[in-house]
């Protein structure tokens, strides 16, 4: 088990969110969309230019930009 930033996750890798370290509009938006501590996610894929990233969360798909993913810390298996 180790903690990495969401940006560093590979395609199809799974993990659990351990922290969302941003306040303000962006933090609010991220949390409103269901990305909160304890949520399981899986990387579904990336856009043709590698950014934004699409992830699977609770059976649905969300996308966010890499620089937004930086604020999200995820616990993943080695």
């Amino acid at each position, binding site marked *: 088990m180790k903690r990495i930033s969401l940006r560093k996750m590979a395609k199809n890798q799974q993990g659990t969110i351990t922290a969302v370290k941003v306040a303000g509009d962006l933090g609010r938006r991220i949390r409103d969309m269901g990305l909160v501590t304890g949520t399981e996610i899986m990387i579904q894929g990336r856009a043709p230019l590698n950014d934004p990233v*699409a992830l699977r969360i609770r059976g649905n798909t969300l996308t*966010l930009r890499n620089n937004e993913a930086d604020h999200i810390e995820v616990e993943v298996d080695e």
Partner: protein
Amino acid sequence: MNKLTLALTGNPNAGKTTLFNALTGARQHVGNYPGVTVERKEGEYKKDNFQAVIVDLPGTYSLTAYSEEEVVARDFIANEKPAVVINIIDAANLERNLYLTSQLLELKIPLVVALNMIDVAKDRGIDIEVAKLAALLGVPVLPIVARTGQGLDALMTAAQDMVEGRIAPPDPAKVKISYGEDIDQTLLLMTDLIREKALFGGKYPSRWIAVKIVENDESLIREVAAADPDLGERLKIEADKVADHLMKTFDTYPEAVIADHRYGFIKGILKSGIITHHYDKNRLYTSDRIDKVLTQRFAGPLIMLLTLFSIYQITFSLSALPIAGVETVFSWISTLVDGLLADGALKSMLISGVIDGVGGVMGFVPLIMLMFFCIAILEDSGYLARVAFMMDRIFRIFGLHGSSVMAFIVSGGIAGGCAVPGVMATRTLRSPKERMATLLTVPFMNCGAKLPILALLIGAFFAEHQALYMFAFTLLSWVVALVAAKILRMTVLRGAPTPFVMELPPYRFPTFNGLMIHTWERTWQYIKKAGTVILLISIILWAMMTYPGLSPEKKAQYSKERAQVNALYESDSEEATKLFLKIDNQQQALTLRNSIAGRIGIAMEKVTWLSGFEWRTNIALLGGFAAKEVVVSTLGTAYSMGDVDPEASTSLGQRLARDAAWSPLVALSALLFMMFYAPCFVTVVCIARESGSWNWAIFSILYSTTFAFILATSVYQIGRLLGF
């Protein structure tokens, strides 16, 4: 009689619009909330003895004042106190959808939950115990399928029962979300303070206000400060205290703690046996399989380009015939008026001002209808979100959003679009600054009406490299638009990018009804404008190009010339027709020169000589503000003056090429200016509407004209220095 109001609220993509359409049918009214660009939709519901106005609130994920939409939704619920709020939630995405529900529960309003798409959920192996869910939430929960209408009667009966008191409104004591010891303590303290002062006269529940302040909800904090500055100060101190404490002990923000606990509350509900998943949660559905192809690294962009290109093709080729039809109708009306009225100012105004002006605007209607139909398909099916996903990386460089691409293409990204539907297409953008930047830069694209100007001048001066020039100018329009967007985002529209975080909703087949309603309501908004602002501006422009007219002596002189022709030739002989035409042309051209527009054109030479334009070009440019098509016809009128040799019926292009005032360098300068100066006034009116303020529309005219002038002047002056 005071009509009953019901409000519809829910996440985007939860099927809110489908439900709204199913409940109200075509009895809808679309407007704007005062002061913001958020659309306000309401419609009438009528069944047996129950009648109500249903207001479709904007789709939101939360009530945290993240966006204008959320503030609008919240204010509506708090201020207009709808009799019942119907919260539509997506059964296949229950956890996230209940996040909004949990906030609505805290508002202590009469709430009915519509559990939508239970059919989709069932297909996905999700079973939901509806009765249990209702008991835990403390509000009625009705399973529905909005697309097919299943369960709608039961839903509305529940709403009616609540209005008429047969079901008690939710008991707030039952659902009280705990936010952890620290925050709960602070909330207790703040709630007492608020209650003591009876803040807002009880418009919001006290605890809810406290939660919002701790959550650092700027818009509500401002509201509190305005209502009671003293209290606002004290509440803020409490909120800051707990925020400090949380930061020191847990390295986290109160907003994060609150969100975590809301989701905790939802998890608690879902865990108590309400939901059973029969399959793996991350199982891929048909929609995901489609995405594997449609957002694939290579196939994705290719398919996207093909899709956008075919929309473009479909819109512009299919609309050609109906547009011609509309034009025929208007020219028929024009002929009719011509025959019915005697020559004079009234007739001239009716034909050149009213009919031509309104006709020009109505000519766009088929185009706009088709384009909105195509966009509605892309939007309702969920593909537009994928386009944004794929294009975002590129458009972000220029401070725009992935969804901007649509507006640019429609406006003429592939030469020959139209900025009017382009400006209206920005409506699909949810981020305000990115949307404004798109709105202000799409008119730089080469729309269909600029093409004749390009064709005329390129044909006359750069005939050897026609295709190359056309391509270069299309490319240039992209560069200018994107760079302008970047500059706007660094200056007047400065600000951090709006968070991109968004859903890729599952692909769905759009409902025909939904498409029709979408298309019609947008088209109707456009048509309404034709009768008001546009009619007025059109009459003003007509007057400017007509008055003060010629002196009586001049008029008499032309009558004399006509009489001479009559005396020399048979009245319908070829020579006579030709001579009459020549006299008409000269009279028109002289009238134009003498008109207000003509005088302005001459006065403008004092400035425009810098870019190489003489007064005749200036008049054409003024006319181009009415519609870019007018540039060519006005040039035609202006340059027919003084053409003495009736045998030499040369084309306008040849005439310009021969004219001493023109040269390839002047043509280049004029081309650049015409591509980038003020958008036509139909576009300007649309910008005013879409941005919600005339200031932006005027800004658009000024900044683009200034830019175009600087560009044209630099090219002309540098060209002259280089000896061209």
